[in-house]
């Protein structure tokens, strides 16, 4: 069983009805938030789901945990279908799949102490007694880099980064297999973001966790993920292992996203090819390929016919009619920081830090 994927998502669809009228509510259309999304996550793997606002990545995360019911499609967790589980079986299942939210201010109950917050998942799943839950809470705080005595404090006594650590500890409480991380670092400052990213990586190694990492920041994603799925307007446009996606992005949207990221190196400042216009409304998505209205390579066929997700190489699938014939932009990738004063100083910084912290 250990080779079987932890999560299998097959042709997942979510439509939201748009209604008008107060007394006689009439459905006037559908927002196609998630349309025909298929992927798998292996044990111990991190799959990143990336895209811009409104692409359906968070909705997908919520459908997987069944915090929302899908319109159609299947979600299997360790081989078991969860799309039609009843309430009690669903609750038992959720013990093994948890979520970390973006906003560490809104996702912790301000009236509960940290100890109570961490004991709650255990209480809900009827694991242990009060004393063992309290002990587990203290242990969890140490695992995420806080102190056991923090259990008596309230969320408002912590900074954003510390609260995110509490959110992570809560997700770990019942020993899950899969954690959906919904933009877990986007509300944090860069220096804190790096601490949390490193923590998530340590926890994954230590507990063999699988992550679905939902994010808009392709640089963070490159750092943390094994495979990457790119969404645009509810559809998966490209999925590949990390190296392939960043070295040989085949979908014009993936290429544009990568080109748009500001590179923190003024030596690379260049005139870029930019996407024009805004993301169209998912209420009336463009016909054919949903990206054709902004695509620099669009041809008549793109507006008429929806491209299927086709295999470009083993494990690399792309939804574009013309990906075989499009040029692949060179995206600078270096094996490490260039030699130079910055690299030397960073090494000195890290060495001094090591010397200071025993162990």
């Amino acid at each position: 069983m250990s080779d079987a994927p932890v999560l299998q998502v097959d042709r997942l669809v979510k439509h939201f009805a748009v209604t008008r009228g107060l007394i006689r509510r009439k459905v006037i259309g559908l927002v196609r938030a998630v349309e025909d999304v298929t992927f798998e996550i292996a044990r111990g793997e991190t799959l990143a789901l990336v895209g811009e606002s409104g692409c359906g990545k968070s909705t997908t995360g919520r459908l997987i945990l069944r915090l929302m019911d899908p319109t159609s499609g299947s979600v299997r967790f360790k081989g078991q279908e969860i799309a039609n589980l009843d309430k009690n079986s669903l609750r038992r299942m959720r013990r093994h799949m948890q979520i970390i939210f973006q906003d560490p201010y809104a996702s912790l109950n301000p009236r509960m102490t940290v100890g109570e917050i961490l004991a709650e998942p255990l209480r809900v799943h009827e694991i242990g007694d009060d004393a063992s839950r309290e002990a587990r809470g203290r242990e969890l705080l140490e695992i995420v880099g806080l102190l056991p005595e923090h259990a008596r404090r309230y969320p408002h006594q912590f900074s954003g980064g510390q609260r995110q650590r509490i959110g992570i500890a809560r997700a770990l409480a019942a020993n899950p297999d899969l954690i959906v991380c919904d933009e877990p670092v986007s509300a944090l400052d860069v220096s804190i973001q790096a601490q949390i990213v490193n923590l998530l990586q340590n926890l994954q190694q230590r507990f063999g966790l699988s992550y679905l990492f939902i994010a808009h920041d392709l640089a963070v994603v490159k750092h943390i993920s094994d495979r990457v799925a790119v969404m645009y307007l509810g559809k998966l446009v490209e999925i590949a292992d990390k190296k392939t996606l960043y070295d040989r992005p085949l979908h014009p949207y993936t290429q544009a996203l990568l080109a748009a990221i500001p590179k923190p190196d003024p030596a690379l400042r260049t005139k870029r090819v930019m996407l024009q216009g805004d993301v169209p409304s998912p209420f009336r998505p463009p016909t054919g390929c949903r990206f054709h209205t902004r695509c620099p390579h669009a041809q008549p066929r793109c507006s008429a016919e929806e491209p299927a997700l086709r295999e470009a190489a083993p494990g690399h699938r792309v939804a574009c009619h013309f990906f075989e014939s499009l040029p692949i932009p060179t995206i600078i990738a270096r094996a490490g920081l260039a030699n130079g004063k910055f690299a030397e100083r960073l090494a000195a910084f890290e060495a001094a830090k090591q010397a200071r912290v025993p162990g």
Partner: protein
Amino acid sequence: MDNLLEVRGLKTHFATDRGLFRAVDGISFSVPRGRTIGLVGESGCGKSVTSLSVMGLVPSPPGKVEAEAVLFGNRDVLRLSADERRRLRGGKMSMIFQEPMTSLNPVHTVGQQIIEAILAHTTMSPRAAKARAIEMLELVRIPSPAQRIDDYPHNMSGGMRQRVMIAMALSCEPALLIADEPTTALDVTIQAQILDLLSDLQQRLGMAILIITHDLGVIAEVADQVLVMYAGRIVESADVKDLFADPQHPYTIGLLGSIPRIDVDRKRLATIEGTVPSPNNQPAGCRFAPRCPFADQRCRLDPPPLRDIAPGHQVACWKAPVEVTS
């Protein structure tokens, strides 16, 4: 070089129930004409309060803005009357904010809001002001501006609203544009459009830009000169190329090491341990000392002054330059 804005010894403090918050604590910098200065730092470092202090938008009380001088052109803006200040603001000195949804008035069309700014600062007739507003919308590349001028903010996307804000800010031909996190709320493809628009407009109109951001990627793309702020003070000031190639302050080094980058493969990110000190309980010496791996007794007791370490490159650190052999 000819400085448009010169800030000397700026201190902005807020009196609160929990004591005096020293949001900005004695900073000096200048903005040359036609150049882009980047002010970078993390939440609570005082970068936004700096821009609000220069604009004269700090509410008082509880805020108190003090400085040896804040010279704009050759006038000290802190010594101007409220009325003179208002004429300056939105005229020769204007500002765009992070959140384009909340900085536009939802009950007026975007056209009315741009026209209002033009009428407040010029002697144009309403008709000429409208023509000018359409011209501005065209300048910020809003398609069919003559129609879009009658749109309300909610009819527009986030990127479009930020373009309207830019149109409004530039409508009176400012010499200085302060852009406070202008692209933080936007998606990356839209961010790229807005940054490109700003540098294009700068070339055409010749204004100076003070851009405030937490994103070192944005700084690397647009700034000529960079100021790094930490806990209310400037810790490093350098030409953009020098800052990224030859960072001197341990905070700058740690910050650059902690950004995930798509152009570099690394196993682990560097981290800066701990968190930013609270603004009402600042360390006595160097404010970065509690988080700095190089800090010693002197750093903890004695605040380091900003000093020259190379031509055009200043750093506030006793230990700089730090070398591997240390």
